[in-house]
């Protein structure tokens, strides 16, 4: 691994992961308990951040934990990552961990907590070198039902579609599970959404398992110094980061080559899940 690459990985780790700064050398943010979930849906999440490169498909596994009043949707790797960071007590341990777990440090930062009674949600996310944000949202999803059906995980699912975030989203829901919830921000259908996909197939959430949650798998959110904002402002802040990455990298003390690498990396993220 050449020096610049190593430096870039360290940079990404330090700046993209807000916890790094809080490792055992620093405090790790606490998880605030909301509710015990009744059901866990595991979704496979495929997405294409660079719309110009159909070969660059990323994959994640995301959990939807559903309780009586709330649900959470997030990457379980985030919790694993925090547990790992809690074990680290020195810079040397940190470096060793990075070398050992190279390629394992990427995960989705967002957490979506839905209030199932109010049909609203709180969105938590972190923007590089900018901080932790949260906003409240009550998505007004107007679903249009279609007659086609399919089968996912042995459940007959019906097709419905809506418009959200600048994209047309196709959802497949099963009335056999009478829970009006689904992956990401989607809800409001008369059954659990087992698959959601945008019309251009850039983003896909597909259920791969339905399980009983294990002990300790609770609906939580992180205690962070959140900047309260609105959805529109958050999208704008995210857009600005893409445009201003070189300045941010410069502020972080990277050399010109590493700045270009960071810029290249951001340029390739030209296809966010919510366009508007």
């Amino acid at each position: 691994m050449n020096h610049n690459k190593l430096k870039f990985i360290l940079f990404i780790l330090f700046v993209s992961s807000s916890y790094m700064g809080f490792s055992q050398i620093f405090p790790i943010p606490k998880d605030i308990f909301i509710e015990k979930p009744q059901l866990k849906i595991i979704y496979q999440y495929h997405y294409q951040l660079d719309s110009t490169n159909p070969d660059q498909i990323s994959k994640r596994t995301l959990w939807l934990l559903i309780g009586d009043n709330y649900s959470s949707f997030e990457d379980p790797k985030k919790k694993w990552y925090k547990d790992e960071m809690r074990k680290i007590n020195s810079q040397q341990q940190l470096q060793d961990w990075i070398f050992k777990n190279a390629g394992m440090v990427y995960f989705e930062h967002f957490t979506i907590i839905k209030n199932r009674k109010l049909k609203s949600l709180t969105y938590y996310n972190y923007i590089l070198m900018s901080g932790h944000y949260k906003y409240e949202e009550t998505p007004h999803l107007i679903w249009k039902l279609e007659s086609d059906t399919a089968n996912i995980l042995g459940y007959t699912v019906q097709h419905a579609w809506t418009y959200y975030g600048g994209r047309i989203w196709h959802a497949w829901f099963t009335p056999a599970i009478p829970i009006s919830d689904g992956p990401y921000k989607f809800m409001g259908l008369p059954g659990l959404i087992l698959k959601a996909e945008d019309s251009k197939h850039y983003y896909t959430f597909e259920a791969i398992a339905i399980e009983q949650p294990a002990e300790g798998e609770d609906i939580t959110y992180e205690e962070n110094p959140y900047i309260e904002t609105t959805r529109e402002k958050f999208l704008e802040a995210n857009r600005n980061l893409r445009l201003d990455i070189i300045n941010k990298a410069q502020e972080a003390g990277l050399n010109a080559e590493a700045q270009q690498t960071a810029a290249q990396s951001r340029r390739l993220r030209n296809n966010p899940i919510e366009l508007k």
Partner: protein
Amino acid sequence: MRMRRLIISFMCLTNILPLFSQVVIEGKVRDEQNKPLSDIHVMVSMLHSDNIVGFDITTNEGLFRIHLHCAGDSVRIKTSSINHEDFKNSIACKSQYLEIILKKSVKDLKEITVKAKHVVKKGDTLSYLVSPFAREQDRTIDEVIRRIPGLEVEPSGKILYEGTPISHLYVEGMDLMENRYSLLTANLPYDKVSTIEVITNHEPVKILQKYATSGKVALNLRLKNKTTLTGNAELAGGIPFFTHKINLTPILLQPALQSLITFQSNNNGEPFVETFGPKFNYQQNLRFDQPVSISAPNPRNIPVADLPPQSYIDNSSLLTSAYILTRSSNQWEWRTSVSYKNDKIDKNWSAQTSYLLPSDTLIFEEMSAFTSKSKIWTTEINLRHNTEKYYADNRLSYSIEPNKQNGIFTRNSSVYRESFEEKPQKLDWNGRWIFPARKNLIELYSYLDYFYNPNLSLHTFPGYILFNQPSDSVFQHFSGNRLAFENYISFFYSPKSINLKIDAGFSFQRLHIESDLHAFDANFDFTGQDTNFLNDNLQKRLRIYIRPSLMKKTSTTTWDFQIPLSSLMLSEESNLHAVSQEYAKIVAEPSLVYNKKIKNHWNLLASIKRYYQYFASSEIFYGYILANPDLLKKNEPLVAGRLYAVNQANASLKYNNILTGLSAYVNAGFSFQQFDFLRSDSIGLSGSHIYTIKNYPNNRYLSLMRGSVSKSLPDVRTNFTVNLNLQSDKGKVFVNGNISNSKSHYLTLNPTIYHYFSVFDLVYAFRWLNINTELGNSNQKQHSDWFRHELSLTGNFTKKNLIVTASFIYNDINRNRIFLTDLSIRYKIKKILSSKLETGILINNLFDTGKYTYNQLDSYVNMVTEFPMRPFQCLLFVRFNY
């Protein structure tokens, strides 16, 4: 922004415009205490469809409001929630206000969920999600099926679940292919399938589901889309000698129409005869008696090696078939299939055949070079209805199957020319109807079969078979026909947990053969006499039976007891010799089956059975007939025994835990057969045989034990399976005038391990077959050990779009060792059609291994066969899955 406005406007319009012709169903949902209920899903669907056409989720005040467009007079309204009972009702499709009262009832989420990733268990159905089992190198669904715990796919495409062949393969509940499902599974791209359902205790007849426990296993493929137009196209060509392979198979799968059309041709060693045999016995388990095969003369048997056919078979083959299945709205299905197959196989082999007789050992050195041409034209139409209310299955099929075989056979330096030709035809009809009669069921079954083989000829030159005397040539002309039918009526009665079924019916078979065996004497001065042996034999079999069966079923246990009573009548006549004999007997054939499910994961099955079988008619009553170029049947006209009794006991214990990925079964069986007669085999110095039947009471004992353990270890990306088979056969043989005891023991051990590295997949299988036979008082003992190591390595170089597979076989039979290597390099052309198109190279027999030795042992025969291998073969291919 403009786009968003446009779409919202469109959605609003599509919602609002129809309001002019829409009705509004609104109302309030409350509980029994009159409190409004929020978050209740209120859904409306049309009367004859489950599709939801309108819905709302109740507000905090329990209110809902649904706009919908009516296509009929009535609609169905349904509510659903976790904490309350579902409400369903049919209502008039007009604007109205409804008050719905729901009772409290908490649904157990555990019932609708699963505890293992990728697997859903609902009752007797296990649903496996396809994508987690698929690997980068996979193209078709059969490649994924073989990775699912408990399922195996044989090289012929036959699918086994826990060692037993599956009974049906459905796609969305429709049986398009019936027994020829391997054509579908080998061509259906796996990414079109969402889940594979393994249905245990599958009863295919829906109206019988509460009356019967079939013990069968079926697979149902659930598709991702309602309409799937897909298929497989492959073109390959290469060296040597314009070797080619073509496969064009479009598939259409829709709720009311499914079809598969295939055109395949190759000369690279993949004859279709192995995967596409004629389907003679539809629903054979229903009939008491199967149609008796007319033991017509056969050509010389072409031995088969236990190797992939492309490594040693020299063929030119063509297959074209069409299968169409349509389903009407009232659930009638019409299925049509038409197929044509043509295989031409050139086969050379050499063998050393040893007969280890009680007092002597005869050894023959043999060489053969034959060309075999077989064709099948077959067509079938089937009209069926399978619902919980009524079952009907009407089927008519017709086939013509001409065969030819010509070649040269050398034994101990004597050279013989042999030729064989036949053109048999078959027509059969099956009808089965089951319908309710008051609270019970009545079944009618009818079967009719006509087989006609009018022009069979077998010719050897020079002849050597008759009495071991040489002759110029032997020519046999043969014609035969068979008429078989069976009819029964069944009555089903099911009080509480007991099911009673009584069948009453009869079966009849008439077999007529005429043969003319003509030997031209070997007197070169033309003074010798020609010899003719004529047969004109008629056999009739009639069975009248009553077959009561009683089944007691609880949630975990099933007892099934049957005791068929039959009156059997057999008559045989020789028109030429003006002799006849008749035979009649009344027999009872009881059977008892016990099945118990133990603690979710265990299943115990035990059975005992006694039944009778006719000894093959051809063994009993023919005067002289040449069964094949090496074998003359010279039978005594009067033999006492017609039937022999078979007593069987079987027990199997199965364990399957989808949470731990551990699956295991052990099966033990014992069979005791009681004969009144014994076949006498006389082996001459020319190597020819003469069979006769002698009256001689004797018993034969067969025992079998099979076991298998398979475990999936996803944490270390490893699956392993160990199979063990033990088989023992003990009885008497009568050879060259001596009666001797014979014993054979077979042992097969077959561990297989699959390991998935991040880049490489490794499959390693080891097989050990050990055979021991013993004749007489330990005078003649034989022993054969066969070891095989098979290693397959597949590298997925995703970034380079390359998949490289190397397969190695190291085979050792009694220290005859060969090493075979095949190589395949596949390149996915991702820029075009996103990886549905691929090209590459297939190399078979990379190191040009010359020959393969195979050893078959019988009680007193040891045949060591050497097959010349196909030379190094290299094919360039293009494949397209769409």
